[in-house]
């Protein structure tokens, strides 16, 4: 069973994130980046699924030079090799373009299953997995909270608001994984040392036969017109209970149209 895990390199969500005022894209220079925490769950599930077979886990990312850090982290966790698509013309790509690049890159790889996170921690759209599946004509079993791979079938448990579904697909298929699927492992010291010897293939748009006009900020289907920092939180209102506390609370909630 060969598995490809798609991982995204994102700005550290615990740092102060902001936008670049020149083109209204995420400022990736000002903050440290890392492997999207939600994608660590996908790496973990891929490693578990591949553990007892003789297949390989390949980690695939589309991103700037520093995105190599995300690939390295996944290799440290135990993935066997990496693929990094990097090209200046990719900057500013939307989900549609990202899915195109990922689909083309997957076309150069051998895989039975393609694992994704449930959503990135920066764009947070959660659409790339299905877009990739659509482009490749593959079944997509998404938001899996429990993933079982048996022979060439993959079964996921999908916890919804009103029901829990069990969905099965036959490889090749796309799988996306939630943060309920099981804690991702920490890289061991041996994993860290071994990662530097694992192969990482660097690809550009021309390697994938993609024309620069199909991707990047210019090709995005939507455009960010303006942005503003979230206003600082204002001090709350303190209600002193002088026997009429309940009434005052109700008045406050009513004034905000909560009741």
């Amino acid at each position: 069973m060969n598995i490809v895990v798609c991982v995204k390199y994102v700005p550290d969500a615990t740092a102060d994130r902001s936008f670049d005022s020149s083109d209204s894209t995420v400022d990736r220079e000002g903050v440290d980046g890392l492997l999207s925490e939600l994608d660590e769950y996908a790496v973990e599930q891929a490693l578990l699924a591949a553990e007892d077979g003789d297949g390989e886990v390949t980690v695939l990312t589309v991103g700037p030079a520093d995105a190599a850090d995300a690939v390295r982290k996944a290799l440290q966790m135990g993935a066997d090799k990496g693929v990094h698509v990097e090209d200046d013309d990719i900057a500013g790509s939307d989900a549609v373009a990202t899915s195109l690049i990922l689909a083309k890159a997957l076309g150069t790889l051998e895989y039975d299953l393609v694992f994704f996170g449930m959503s990135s921690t920066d764009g947070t759209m959660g659409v790339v997995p299905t877009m990739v599946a659509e482009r490749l004509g593959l079944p997509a079993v998404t938001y899996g909270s429990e993933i079982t791979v048996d022979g060439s079938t993959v079964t996921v448990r999908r916890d919804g608001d009103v029901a829990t579904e069990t969905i099965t697909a036959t490889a090749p298929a796309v799988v996306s994984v939630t943060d309920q699927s099981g804690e991702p492992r920490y890289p061991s010291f041996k994993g860290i040392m071994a990662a530097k010897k694992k192969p990482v293939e660097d690809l550009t748009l021309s390697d994938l036969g993609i024309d620069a006009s199909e991707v990047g900020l210019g090709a995005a289907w939507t455009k960010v017109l303006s942005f503003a920092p979230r206003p600082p939180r204002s001090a709350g209102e303190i209600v002193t209970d002088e026997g009429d506390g309940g009434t005052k609370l109700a008045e406050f909630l009513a004034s905000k149209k909560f009741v």
Partner: protein
Amino acid sequence: MSTAFAESEERRDLRKAVAELGRKYGRDYFNAAYREGRKTTELWEEAGKLGYLGVAVPEEYGGGGGEIGDLAAVCEELAAAGCPLLLMVVSPAIVGTIIAQYGTDEQKQRWLPGLADGTSTFAFSITEPDAGSNSHKITTTAYRQEDGGWRLSGGKTFISGVDEASQVLVVARTEDHKTGNLKPALFLVPTDAPGFTWQEIPMGIVSPEKQFTLFFDDVVLPSDALIGSEDAGIEQLFAGLNPERIMAASFATGTARLALELATEYAKTRQVWKAPIGAHQAVAHPLAQTHIEIELARLMTQKAAALYAAGDHMGAGEAANMAKYAAGEVVCAAVDRAIQTHGGNGLAEEYGLVQMLAGSRLSRIAPVSREMVLNFVAQFSLGLPKSY
């Protein structure tokens, strides 16, 4: 000359990974373990499984094959996450190094795999009540038995982690060298050996790791309890000292980083006049100074580790002592200034700083006091006359 003042990418990645593990546990876990009389077993075991405790154990024995600088990075990052593990200084660093360098093949086979994955813990004991900083005065003595084994008699004090250890490495004298300048011999004593008892010393330090007074009452040991050779004892002991100091320095700079981080955060958010208190230079400058002093101490620690890895033990000795000194000073200053920055909250349990106070002073006293480091530097670096 070294080519760059940066740690390798692997070392930096190791720091990141350990810091992540440390955050999973954190100060609350550490302090709760202390309050409830538990040990930090879960953290120790997980760190062991991930190979973080055994980074410096040779690969052939299941370790990571890394350097003392890697182990020091692990210790520093855990301390910076609020989990300072004193036993890391003792077990993998001192005892691990001595066994790996001087143990017989059999001893290495027997002990190193447990050190590599953290499943065995070793205490280290040199300090004696009447000797203290003057190790030449230790009197714990090993008598050779007719069957080639040994009988150990004497006592130690302030020994960390005996209750968690399976063995204690004991620095003793042989009966042929009962007096005079120390000619030590090193013995591994199982903590359940008949005749070996210990008593906890009530300490004011907030840590799940405890200190003990040890009594060896004619403890009978097999011949292979002697680590390495009877005659190379002093060399073996010294082999453990540089790692010990490098680790002690990292233990201290980690805690100093945590104190500074807490103080900085507080200074940015606490506001009692027009601006946050961090806008006052009287608050900001001590924190800036702490940052500088921490970075200097870390740099010297990394230098010591690099010299040690390169095999320059004399150079490493000087650097390791200086690093230990600087780190001990800065952790005291950092905790002190962090408390001052917090005002009354600095002494409130909720803010976690007052719990770090006694522990920060430890780094000035153990494993070697600041005065003894200054003696060393005065005598060996400056060539000043010896005073004692």
